């Protein structure tokens, strides 16, 4: 059988504009549907990306190395040596971009008015800066200068709760490696503001060397945080890091360390597809109606084509082509609209009105839509595949018309 593609295309294109109002309405509906799919996906993806990035900044890193028992008992007892040998070589090679060895211990901070349980991080400021895990905004005072800095950096919210301030001394209490209480007076050298208010209350920063000295350690740490260029690619380099760390250490990726974020990312992929399918299922009723009406109005003409020798398969192809053109135009318009909407929002959307409630989910006050090429491809695939499937019924009915009855219709 010969397939006169150009003739079918010509017919499909001209038929499309026979009832241009109906075609324009359907085009508008498809374009809006595609626009909604892409814009909503970009917002959802931006939200999830931000949640993951905020979560990783807090974690911090895309992977962490601990003593094998640290997760069961996150105390200084389960410490490990500073990285050396193979592990150090691995940490200093691509794609790892930064790492920081730190002491993470539960502690109590007490001012003259109040006390709070917090997590104290003993850090090397230079390593943390490379990792990007230092607080972004310093409200007062200074950052820690070196691992041996004896000052403490507090979050603004924690400082308020302790009723203390810059320059004041507070008491830092924790347990040493012998499970004895170790305490020391430390001066508040800086007040920081975190992206998430909860972090301000949870984390206090001191020099790693100073904390090691307080807890009776020499060069040992409890955590090595590791960062690379793309958090989605962590599974590619994690096995090599794990092999170099040896059996006494546990190397975990962020999806295992922060299972909520890992699950969130996986669920989001599925949700985007479900959302697109639901949007298009609603649209498909309109599409089916348009094509059914188009076929109904052209019953006589379709009967004529069959009478002239067009095989049913060609009639089916012609109606499907008509649908394909409609869908392609709708996709083009929808993608254009979506780009026109998202490009001006590149610098972020202010959602501070709702950000406080979202903080529990690691959301920030500014949402950056993330337009992913695969979402545009996915929406195109969903629209084309479901659109053509929805068109099959009217197209099949057109191809099964009895030419005698069709020609007799007035």
């Amino acid at each position, binding site marked *: 059988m010969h397939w006169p593609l150009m003739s079918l295309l010509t017919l499909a294109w001209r038929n499309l504009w026979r009832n241009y109002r109906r075609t324009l309405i359907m085009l508008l509906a498809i374009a809006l549907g595609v626009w909604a799919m892409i814009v909503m996906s970009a917002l959802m993806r931006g939200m999830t990306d931000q949640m993951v990035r905020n979560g990783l900044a807090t974690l911090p890193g895309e992977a962490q190395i601990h003593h094998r028992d640290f997760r069961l008992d996150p105390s200084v007892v389960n410490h490990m040596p500073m990285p050396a040998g193979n592990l150090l070589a691995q940490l200093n090679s691509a794609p790892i971009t930064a790492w920081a060895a730190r002491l993470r211990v539960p502690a109590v901070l007490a001012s003259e008015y109040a006390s709070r349980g917090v997590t104290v991080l003993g850090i090397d400021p230079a390593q943390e800066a490379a990792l990007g895990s230092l607080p972004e905004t310093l409200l007062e005072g200074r950052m820690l200068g070196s691992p041996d800095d004896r000052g403490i950096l507090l979050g603004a919210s924690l400082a308020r709760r302790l009723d203390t301030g810059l320059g004041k001394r507070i008491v830092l209490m924790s347990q040493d490696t012998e499970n004895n209480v170790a305490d020391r007076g430390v001066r508040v050298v800086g007040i920081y503001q975190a992206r998430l208010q909860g972090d301000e209350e949870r984390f206090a920063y001191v020099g790693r060397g100073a904390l090691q000295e307080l807890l009776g350690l020499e060069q040992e740490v409890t955590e090595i945080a590791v960062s690379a260029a793309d958090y989605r690619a962590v599974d590619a380099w994690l096995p090599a890091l794990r092999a170099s760390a040896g059996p006494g250490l546990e190397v975990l990726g962020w999806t295992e360390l922060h299972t909520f974020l890992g699950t969130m990312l996986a669920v989001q992929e599925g949700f985007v597809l479900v959302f697109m399918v639901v949007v298009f299922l609603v649209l498909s009723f309109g599409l089916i109606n348009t094509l059914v009406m188009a076929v109904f109005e052209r019953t006589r003409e379709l009967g004529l084509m069959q009478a002239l020798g067009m095989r049913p398969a060609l009639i089916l192809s012609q109606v499907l082509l008509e649908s394909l053109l409609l869908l392609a135009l709708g996709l083009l318009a929808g993608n254009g609209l979506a780009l026109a909407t998202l490009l001006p929002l590149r610098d972020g959307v202010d959602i501070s009105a709702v950000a406080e409630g979202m903080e529990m989910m690691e959301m920030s006050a500014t949402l950056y839509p993330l337009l992913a090429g695969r979402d545009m491809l996915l929406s195109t695939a969903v629209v084309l595949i479901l659109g053509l499937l929805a068109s099959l019924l009217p197209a099949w009915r057109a191809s099964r018309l009895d030419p*005698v009855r069709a020609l007799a219709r007035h």
Partner: protein
Amino acid sequence: MSSIVCQDLCKTFAQGEERITGLDRVSLSIDAGELLCLSGPSGSGKTTLLNALGGLDTPDSGSIRLAGRRIDQLSRGARADLRLREIGFVFQAYNLIPVLSARENVEFVMQVQGVPVAARHQRAAAMLAEVGLAGLENRRPGEMSGGQQQRVAVARAIASEPRLVLADEPTANLDSHSATQLMDLFQTLNRDRGVTFVLATHDPRVMAYARRLIRMEDGRIIEDIAQQAAGRPSPGGAS
């Protein structure tokens, strides 16, 4: 040699709970190159017989052979192919594709057949000129008179050089002048190209052009007569 042979064709239609007889044991032979008219009152079975001959409809029983080939047993697709390659149709109500120009309408069947672009352009132009529509190639059906549209339909029917043209009430919507022009055209094509024409009609002007007249009633052939055809004399003098 007979081009079409029908044997004991029967066809009934359901109308509510009743069965209406469309064809009642119709047997008929049509030779190649005939110009034949089926006449009779409405419901006599003319169109049903025409549809069966063209493979648009299948009889309940009986056989139809076109050039020796049983067409009543062909599949839907094979009958479509047969219509595409061997049969031209002209219908009562012009039946052109409204979104195509006159030239595109004439080319339509050739396009589906797979005739190369240059060849079909040339043939369509020649056919339109032959039916007197040179210069109107790019007009769409809505921009032409009924007579002009019917001529486009005739050009389409003959452009692919079918061996058989079936026309159902081809002059029903035409004025006297256009009807005469159309029948003159049919007669010329029949005489010059040897195309077999089977026309179903009520119109005495059309019947006058036929060399064979078949009268039908209640789905049966009641009269089958040869006659002297009217129309324009042939170049050789016979008409």
